[in-house]
């Protein structure tokens, strides 16, 4: 047989098995539907958790950016020394941004906050800045969990008098972030287990329905993979359909919710900004498809190993 003949043969076998796998789904409609529905529910919940998770993480990150570490200097430290410290701060990886606030700016800001409407009370300090030694750096972090490391480093620098930090805020945000992560992973593990169990059931029913056909195939001389292939196709297709349906649903739902919130609750819009639908789905689509197909494949493989001694 020619090389082309071999390739042709493989292709026809491949398509035959795809056809048989699809027929399995059709013959076994009720169980297939139940599996697709469960898989859809799993992927849907996964998508909901993912969308919530990324939006929440983003919000936590925005909140983290609002937590500042403040560095004060000893009296008599020159501007050059403070600039040198500023340069060191800028080199740190955990630092997102930093601002230098002069003593004058600090006093102006203080006056604005505490003497608004009673400016005459502050006039007595016109030539004698009570915050003369309060020039400082406000440092914003990429990741609040790194706050203590930065504070330890800053406290070791020459000329630094005091480092202010909000330990509670940092710890709360950091813990909250971890909690979201744990819940996300926990839910996903449970959902995957349920989906694998259902695919298992469907393929087991498929095998028992086709028991006679499998027995004949084996007697005629079918290779192990040929007997298994339609069931793998069945599992993979259930996974695929069970991913596409919830993805489409989630796509429209996410857009609708974002638009609804933006229109109806404009005040939330100032506090919370949703991640654009394309940014969420550029990750969610491949991950969900992989998850669905993977669960289908693994579920059917496990069942075949258990119930199909070829």
């Amino acid at each position: 047989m020619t090389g082309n003949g071999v390739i042709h043969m493989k292709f026809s076998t491949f398509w035959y098995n795809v056809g048989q796998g699809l027929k399995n789904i059709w013959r076994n409609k009720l169980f297939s539907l139940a599996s697709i529905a469960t898989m859809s529910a799993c992927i849907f919940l996964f998508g909901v958790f993912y969308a919530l998770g990324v939006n929440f993480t983003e919000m936590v990150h925005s909140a983290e950016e609002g937590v500042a570490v403040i560095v004060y200097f000893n009296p008599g430290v020159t501007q050059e020394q403070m600039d040198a410290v500023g340069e060191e701060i800028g080199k740190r990886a955990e630092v997102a941004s930093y601002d230098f606030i002069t003593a004058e700016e600090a006093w102006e800001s203080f006056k604005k906050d505490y003497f608004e409407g009673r400016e005459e009370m502050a006039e007595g300090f016109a030539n004698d800045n009570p915050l003369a030694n309060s020039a400082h750096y406000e440092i914003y972090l990429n990741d609040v969990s790194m706050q203590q490391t930065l504070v330890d480093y800053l406290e070791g620098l020459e000329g630094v008098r005091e480092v202010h930090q909000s330990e509670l805020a940092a710890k709360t945000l950091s813990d909250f972030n971890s909690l979201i992560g744990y819940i996300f992973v926990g839910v996903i593990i449970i959902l995957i287990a349920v989906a694998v169990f259902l695919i298992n059931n469907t393929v087991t029913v498929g095998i028992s329905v086709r028991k006679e056909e499998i027995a004949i195939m084996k007697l005629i001389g079918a290779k192990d993979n040929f007997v298994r292939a339609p069931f793998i196709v069945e599992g993979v297709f259930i996974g695929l359909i069970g991913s596409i349906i919830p993805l489409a649903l989630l796509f429209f739902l996410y857009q609708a919710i974002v638009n609804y919130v933006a229109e109806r609750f404009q005040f939330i819009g100032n506090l919370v900004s949703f991640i654009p639908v394309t940014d969420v789905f550029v990750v969610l689509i491949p991950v969900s498809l992989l998850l669905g197909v993977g669960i289908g494949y693994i579920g059917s493989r496990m069942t075949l190993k258990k119930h199909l001694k070829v």
Partner: protein
Amino acid sequence: MIQLEHVSKTYQQGVPALNDVNIKIEQGEFVFVMGKSGSGKSTLIKLLLKELEPTEGEITINGQNLSAVTHKNIPYFRRNIGVVFQNFRLLQDRNVYENVAFAMKVVEASTKEIKRKVPLMLSLVGLAAKYKSLPRQLSGGEQQRVAIARALVNEPKILLADEPTGNLDNTNAWEIMHLLEEINERGTTVVVVTHNSEIVRKMDKRVITIKKGVVVHDGKWGDTHEV
């Protein structure tokens, strides 16, 4: 060629299903294997198809020692043996053509080859006109013809028929036997396991009789034959 040398098979219960069986069947022979139920016929078929392993002894088929056939190579080994069953074992949801084509699909034959060979095989068994019929629309004899076509379409050297006439009336049974004879005349070794002594006697072929796992007769049907 089929050769069994000192073959014994004992199941877990301890009773030997076959005991020191020695059989040699040459290429192109037509042989009946006779015996009552429980005599060891089914065990013999399972051993020949390598569904079971002998407890003792060696089986050689087409020059291949079965103990040397690995699990991976069992499918390739089985492609040399066509099998026909008493209850036909056709796929009820597929028509005559598809049932025969199925055997070729299973061995990964090309579509072109399937389209060429299936009609030829259906003509051979006299069912070309009924290629679209479902098994339930056929008589028992016709269903067995489809099963024979399926067993032969991959051109095996050996055809193993397990009680092929067991579910058929006399007329249909004889039609099937004549078909098997015709297939044998084309060069295929035919082994028919049966308990129909009338057919065996009239066909006048070699008969191997098994009783309680032991070969008690091997030769032409004669006055001394006992079953």
